[in-house]
Structures are given as structure tokens and as C-alpha cells.
């Protein structure tokens, strides 16, 4: 049996990356948290030997992906996921060598350059899980306008981040 300190360290060290990965796979917020918890429990119960951070991350991602596939089958959801190699390649490319740290710093810089209204819309959408109607009410735009605002914002962010991380 593992000690509480060891378990807490494992979770703290890897929860951000694991949640990010599950969101990257397409899980909505609550599902991502549930699957992350299941993944940690399965890993602890399997007595996985924690050697280095990279290996542990890889193991957790594989376990989480399997849990997600199992959930999709159970719920009879037809979600077409890209090939596993493509998934991993895209993940590795975006994460870089520092678990997405460089990307995140660039994202912060780029977010700060957006207008207040755009920032509000993004915060409501990704921070508060607000509906398009709520966002449209808060920003004073029609729902379609809010949708367009966010699409343009993401385009700007992607472009800005690409420049900053030097792709």
C-alpha cells in the first residue's frame, strides 16, 4: 500500500498535465476530472513503479486514454478520434520539453493583447463554462456575434502563440 504523501505527490505532480490531456482528447470538464481520478486510482492500485516523470506521464496518459475509450463505448458515443500516433505526435509537439510551459507563457502574453470584451468572452467560455447565450448577454452581442468573436480570438491567439514559441 502506498503512503498518503506518496499518493498526494503523484497526483499533484501530474494532475495538471493529465487533465490537459483529457481535455485535449475532447472530454468536457466534469468527465475529465472523473477520468483523471480513475486514472490515478488505477495507477496506484496497479503499484506502478514511479521512476521518472516522463515515463509516469506516458503511463498515465495511456491509462487515461483507455478509460476514455471505455467510457465512449459504455455511453455508445460515436466519437472519431485520430490515430493514436497522430494524437501523441500532436500532443508532444504542443507540450514541448517543458510540459506546455512555454506554450502557456505565450498564451498569457497573447491573451493580454486581446480586447477586454474578447477576454471576457473567453473567460466566460473557458473559465466559467458559460453558454453562448450567457456570453452574448455579457458582451452585448448577438449569439452569432459572440461565436464569431471567439473564433476570431482563437485564430489570433493561435497565430500569436505560434510566433512566440518560434514555430
Amino acid at each position: 500500500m502506498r503512503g498518503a504523501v506518496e499518493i498526494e505527490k503523484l497526483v499533484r505532480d501530474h494532475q495538471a498535465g493529465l487533465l490537459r490531456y483529457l481535455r485535449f482528447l475532447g472530454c468536457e470538464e466534469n468527465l475529465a476530472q472523473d477520468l483523471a481520478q480513475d486514472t490515478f486510482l488505477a495507477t496506484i492500485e496497479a503499484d506502478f513503479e514511479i521512476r521518472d516523470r516522463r515515463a509516469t506521464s506516458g503511463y498515465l496518459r495511456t491509462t487515461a486514454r483507455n478509460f476514455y475509450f471505455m467510457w465512449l463505448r459504455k455511453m455508445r458515443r460515436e466519437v472519431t478520434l485520430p490515430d493514436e500516433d497522430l494524437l501523441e505526435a500532436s500532443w508532444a509537439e504542443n507540450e514541448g520539453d517543458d510540459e506546455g510551459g512555454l506554450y502557456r507563457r505565450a498564451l498569457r502574453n497573447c491573451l493580454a493583447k486581446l480586447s477586454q470584451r474578447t477576454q471576457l468572452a473567453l473567460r466566460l467560455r473557458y473559465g466559467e463554462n458559460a453558454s453562448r447565450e450567457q456570453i452574448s448577454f455579457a458582451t452585448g452581442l448577438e449569439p452569432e456575434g459572440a461565436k464569431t468573436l471567439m473564433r476570431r480570438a482563437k485564430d489570433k491567439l493561435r497565430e500569436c502563440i505560434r510566433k512566440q514559441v518560434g514555430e
Partner: protein
Amino acid sequence: MNEREQLNERYLEAQLREELGIEPDLSESVLREYYAKHPPEKRSRVIPPPPRKPAWRPMAAAAAVLLAAGLGCYSLVSVLQDRVRDDQRHERAGQQQPVELKEEADTTQFTPPVKKDVTPEPEQKPDVEPEQNPGDSPEEPPAETPDGSSWPKGHTDPPGAFPVPEKPKSDPPPEEPDDVVGPKPDPKGWTDPPDAWPRGDHSESKKAPALVAQWKGDVLHVTRDGSVWRVKPDDKFIIRVGDKVEPKGSAEFTLMDGGLLRLDGELSFDGEPEALSLTLHDGALYADVTHELAVTSERVTARLTGVGVLEQRLHGFEVFCVSGSVRSGEDDLTAGYRARLEDDGFKHDKKIGWEDVQREFKFLRETPKRVMLHEDLAEAPGELFGGEIKDGVLVGNSDSENGSGFYLREPYEYRQGDVVRFRFRIETAREMILQFGTLESDNWRYKLGGVKAGEWIEYELPLSKLYKTTDVAKKAEPGLRLKFFQLHPEEGKTKIEIDSVEIVHQP
């Protein structure tokens, strides 16, 4: 958009969620789930039942030893007496034969047979058995004593009488403080041994100050003086200094100064009514307090004034400060932020709102409401106007110029999050106005709109919705000192009945 671009888009969205949202800490839930499946013996949260057998057996053994010793003493004394008598008999032989025979008969009368000495005297039993021995009536909880002074002192077997371990029914009855309803007898009809109950001579708990005015919940497990009590809301149980409580589910505690706690976990009470010092052993604690509340875990102490939640973590607390502030040493956390508090201070601050706190804690999904002021109008709280109290209702006739209402017992200072709730009925359908007067001699009102006639209506209104009567663009702000409450129709006349008025504070 091809697959690769789609994945990049998802990665960006994942990063946005992480950057703009509140990242959960899964360590607590993982640990909870893991230990639910693999319970560690030492960290078990199951409260052990009162130590029936371990406490009783040593008593029985001690009683048996005493009994054996007593029998030995008695036998020795009897033998010696017999010898003395034999000697006397020999000395008196031939001189006072008839008298000596009479004396022997008297002596025999005074010397009790062995059996009589082992069993308590029959006339002593009624003191112990009829109403105070819960073992006789296992379905009924032990009787409460009216107050501590009336507790029987030394309420055990009389001195010199030997305890009879084979008959636990004649054990002394449990003695309780006046405000405590003890554990019920177990199905076998046995009660806890006397040592497991608070006793008359253990008066610390009784004297300890009460720290909680009332509590609401399902069942509370209270550890006091080493014994665990199972308390229900109907029991007249007062939580005092030194009590450790753990509710089934969650429970709400109203403190002596009106402060509100809601607990989902395990908590010890200490300190004084206006300077509480709590220890959160497990789970999470919501607090809405005006006096500073010190909450300690193994390593840190958080001092909260306002509204906040503290969640016990391995190395400290996760702190959610909704309003007011939370201090720890030199460091502090301001309203609208959550942070991890460990022995090196607050860290990982993130902005939060009350909705985030509710999302985080299931036991706070139903918003806690602290009652700040309550008038059920059984009597006039302060000066009445436009009516009089009849059968617990303020009844009056009102028009657009003259309202029906009352002055508060003392001015009430409006705090952010306050809501006024009142129950009223009108005779004629009218558009009604609620109005508060303030110490600053201005009035603040709200138009309730059309109100049906003849129906009791419960109305709830955040005080922030009030606007100044003479300047409708000016909204009420915290700090206003309210002095009276009144209702009146916007136009026309109507009879008004006001049943109750209260102000509650919510995050």
C-alpha cells in the same frame, strides 16, 4: 480543418481552460477514494463505539478481587470471633452457664451470615434501580437530571458493600449533565459502563462554556471526556469547550454570537464564545462570522473574519475567502480568492466567486443563510406605527401616505449579501411598497408590484435592490443603518397583516 489542425485547436482550448478556469486539486478525492477501498487502520475515520467490554472487564475483575478479599476478611474475622467466644466460653464455663447461653444467642443475632454481607442490603436497592437504571428499560434513553447540582454525589454502592459483578443491573446508573442525552442502551439491554459516562465528579465538561447556541443536522457524533455520543437534533445537547464533533453528512452550528458554521468533516471546539478556536481534523468548514475565528490544522492556523471555507489538506488548508479576509501569521488572503495555506503562508492564489465555491463543495450547494435579525411579531419589537399586534401578527390599515410597520429593536447595519424576508397579507389587491428608514434619516424602498388579495405571501428581497425614495437612481449600499421597516400600498388603501420579518446574510 484537418485532423492536425483540429488537435491543435483542442490543445489551445485545453490550455485556455487551464489558464482561465479553476484547476481542481484531485489529491484529496483520490486519497479519499483510495482509502475507502483500502482503509488504513490508523487513519480510520470510523468512530469506535464506547469501550464497553474493555472498560467493564477490568471492573468486574477488580470487583471479583474485592469480593474475594472481603470474603477472606470476613472469614478471618468470624474465625477470630469464634475463637474469642470459645475462649470466653471456656473462662465462664461452670460459672454463668444460663447467661452465657443467652449471650451466645444475642451474638448470633448480630453476626450476619456470609450471604447477607455479599449482597447489597435490600433497602438500598430502590435508590438505584427504579428509574435510573437504563439496563431495566433498554428502549428508553437514560433519564436526564434537571441540573448539575442535583446529581447524586458518590452515587455508587454504599461504602462497605461489595460490588456484584455478576449482576450489572445493580451498577450505579449513568449520570448525565442536564443538557446531555446519552447513548441508548445497546440491544442486549446493557448500558455503557459507568466510567464511559460523564459523571458528577467529572465536572469540567459541565462547567465548560457553551460555544454553540444551536445546531441543525441529521446525527452528530460528539467526543467528550473520551466518550463518544450519538446526538440527534431533538436531544438537548449543548456543545461546549473541548467537544469534538463529526456530523453524519453535514451540520450547521449557530454560534453564541450568531455566527454560522457548516461542517462536513470533523471539528474540535475550544476557546471562548467570542474568540473561538477550532481544530479541523478532517473535511471542510464553512464559516460566516463577524468575530475572528481561529481554525487550526496540524501545521497551520487560519484566522477568518467574514465568509470563507477551509478544507483540510495534508500539509495545511485550502482556503476560500468569499468576503472579509483570512490571516495566517503575517500573511493574509483577501476576499474573492482561494489559496493553499501551508506553514510558509498562502500560495497558488486564484480568483474565485461564490459559484466556484459551491461547485467545489457539495455540502454548500444549498447556500448557507445566517439569520441576522428575526421578528415573528409575537410582541412589538420597537415602536409600532400604522397598526397593532394581534395574535402574533401586526395588523393595520395603510394608504400611500401612511405605512404599517415597526422600529427595529436596534439599528441594523446592512452588509453585502443581506436579504430581507417577510410574510404578509393584504385585504385589497394593490401595488405594494416596502420601505426601510435609516439612522441617516433617509428612506430606501422597493416596489413589490401587484400583490394578490387575501393570500399569505413570503417575499424575499436582496437589500441591494433597495433604492433611495428621493433618488431612484441611487442604490442601497452596505453600511446603511436601518431603523424601521414598513409596507404600504402605492395608491389607495388596504388592510395589511405582517406575520414575520427577518434579515439573513448569505455569501
